[in-house]
């Protein structure tokens, strides 16, 4: 029988971790062989409801299961959030081209995340941490709306132990429980002590945040070819056929979702 490119295969939810009020991480065990490269995405199906694209947030080195961190934001994700341990999900993928780790080697890697945009970046962090001799430094700058919206809080101490990392978080709106910086993530993109000739910037977050972080990185002197963006586009098939995710001469699903700003800079209407 011919392979049906639209048919998902089954995965079992092995665990559900509540990250914030609106964000959960699902631990999935696929019933078929499955592996991904950091930055690639999968289409997850809630059976009979619908499908949406997500980028795994776990270490790509772990092969028998993977994690996806999902914010409740639409009808598919709302149903996803009601699923429990033991329930079934559908998977298609992985699709697209992930982060080109080879191009990051020997460099300072500045990672800028916003909100649930830290999820794909966590998989990148695991990939980098697993091979730290090959990278000069990892600088993480992350912004969330409030301290209650910060994800992976409990992982930060472990990440910070590595001498080659520099991690800083900020919140848009401060409160009594928050001791750190208050302001948009662009306000902590300073004094980075990064050698611009040997640095890359990796950005993932909501479209409006990606826009302003990109502008900020350009202002700091990053070259467009060294800014890597995880483009969030409306997507349906994930295969370069349905037409939704066109960005210029590319489809985000098959040519991305990771693009350099160099590849996108001449296009109108790419953010919000």
């Amino acid at each position, binding site marked *: 029988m011919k392979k049906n490119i639209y048919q998902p295969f089954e995965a079992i939810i092995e665990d559900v971790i509540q990250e914030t009020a609106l964000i959960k991480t699902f631990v999935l065990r696929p019933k078929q062989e499955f592996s991904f490269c950091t930055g690639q995405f999968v289409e997850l*199906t809630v059976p009979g409801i619908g499908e949406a694209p997500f980028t795994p947030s776990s270490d790509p080195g772990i092969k028998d299961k993977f994690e996806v961190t999902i914010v409740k*934001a*639409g009808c598919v994700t709302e149903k996803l959030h009601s699923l429990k341990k033991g329930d079934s999900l559908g998977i298609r993928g992985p699709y697209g081209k992930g982060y080109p780790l080879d191009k990051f080697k020997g460099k300072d890697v500045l990672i800028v995340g916003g909100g649930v945009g830290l999820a794909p970046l966590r998989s990148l962090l695991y990939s980098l941490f697993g091979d730290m001799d090959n990278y000069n430094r990892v600088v993480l700058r992350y912004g969330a709306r409030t301290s209650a919206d910060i994800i992976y809080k409990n992982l930060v101490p472990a990440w910070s132990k590595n001498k080659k990392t520099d991690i800083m978080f900020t919140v848009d709106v401060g409160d009594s429980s928050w001791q750190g910086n208050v302001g948009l993530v662009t306000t902590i993109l300073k004094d980075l002590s990064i050698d611009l000739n040997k640095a890359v910037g990796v950005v993932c977050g*909501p*479209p409006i945040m990606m826009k302003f972080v990109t502008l900020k990185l350009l202002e700091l002197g990053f070259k467009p070819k060294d800014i890597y963006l995880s483009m969030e586009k409306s997507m349906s098939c994930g295969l370069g056929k349905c037409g939704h995710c066109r960005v210029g001469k590319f489809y985000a699903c098959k040519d991305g979702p990771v693009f350099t700003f160099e590849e996108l800079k001449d296009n*109108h209407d790419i953010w919000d």
Partner: protein
Amino acid sequence: METYFLKDEDVFKFYNRIAQEYELFVPVRVETSSRIKCDYGFNLPSDDYALRKFSEVNKEDIVYNDYRCIEPIRTFLTYIKEETCTYFKDQPQNNQEKPPAICGVKNCDIFSLKIQDFVFLGGNEIDPLYQERRSNALIISSDCPNFKEACFCRAFDINPHASEGFDFNLSPLTGGFLVDVASDKARRITDSLKDIFVAAGLGQTSGRAAKRENVIKKMDEHLSCHKIPKKDVLKEIVLSGLNSKVWDEQMQTCVECGGCVFMCDTCHCFLLSDEPAGDNAKRLRLWDGCMFKNFSRVAGGANPLKMRYMRLRNRYLKKFDFFVDNLGIQGCCGCGRCIDVCPGKIDIRYILRKLYEEKYLSAV
């Protein structure tokens, strides 16, 4: 490719033979009361042709279509709504569907198949539904002895007659048709009907050439009034015109009906949509279109194409930038269906002309 002559009175033998193996679609006339005036003295027809099942139509209603039918050819290759699969259990598909044989296909439609094939058969993943229908379909194209006001294939150097990409091609002559036979599928049919297909004479083929030239000449004269830019500059003028006022101006009358995208020969966008089906689930594929407001909206509400002028501009970028970059041809075959269908009178010919004039003829 062999060329035969088929007499008028034998056409139904030909149709009946095809209908044994295929679901044959044939053109019927759809009279339209509204007349399109050409203010430069051309008297162009305004009636339409629709494709109907040969098995269901009155035989006397079957006509030769002088120009393309209402339906874009892709309606036979991907459906407006169809089931793509079930999950997680496969359900046996009792597919009794006969492959389609489509009469009255024109060269604009054949050009559009290059786009559809690129989308559904190209890349790493092949669409199995499209592939099956496409490889089994019988394409029976025919010359255009006339054209509608909205037709503009020649502006992009596409002829109103096909020279490749069909199984059969019919060219009307006095008393019958010249029939080009271009594939093994088609040859199997002519081989079984040897008595009605006679070798074409030289006089007949040169008669056809003269008729074809005449139509081209008349159409070129018609198109000279529209001043549509040549295909080589389309990418350039769309890119240089990103900030043109024409996008917003033209969208003032758009009612967001989606007619332009659904009637388009070269549009292909779709949306996968799921439904429960007992203890199983099924995945449907629905045609979608980039002129709809939520086409590019993402979860959380961000929408890079929230204004209507952005969506029109995006559509032209897809057709004249994306496809030119990725396939080397423009995503428009000049069939004019979007012009005919639009209740807001938005006209691709006008937009392209405007973009060209703004780039090359604007007073500095």
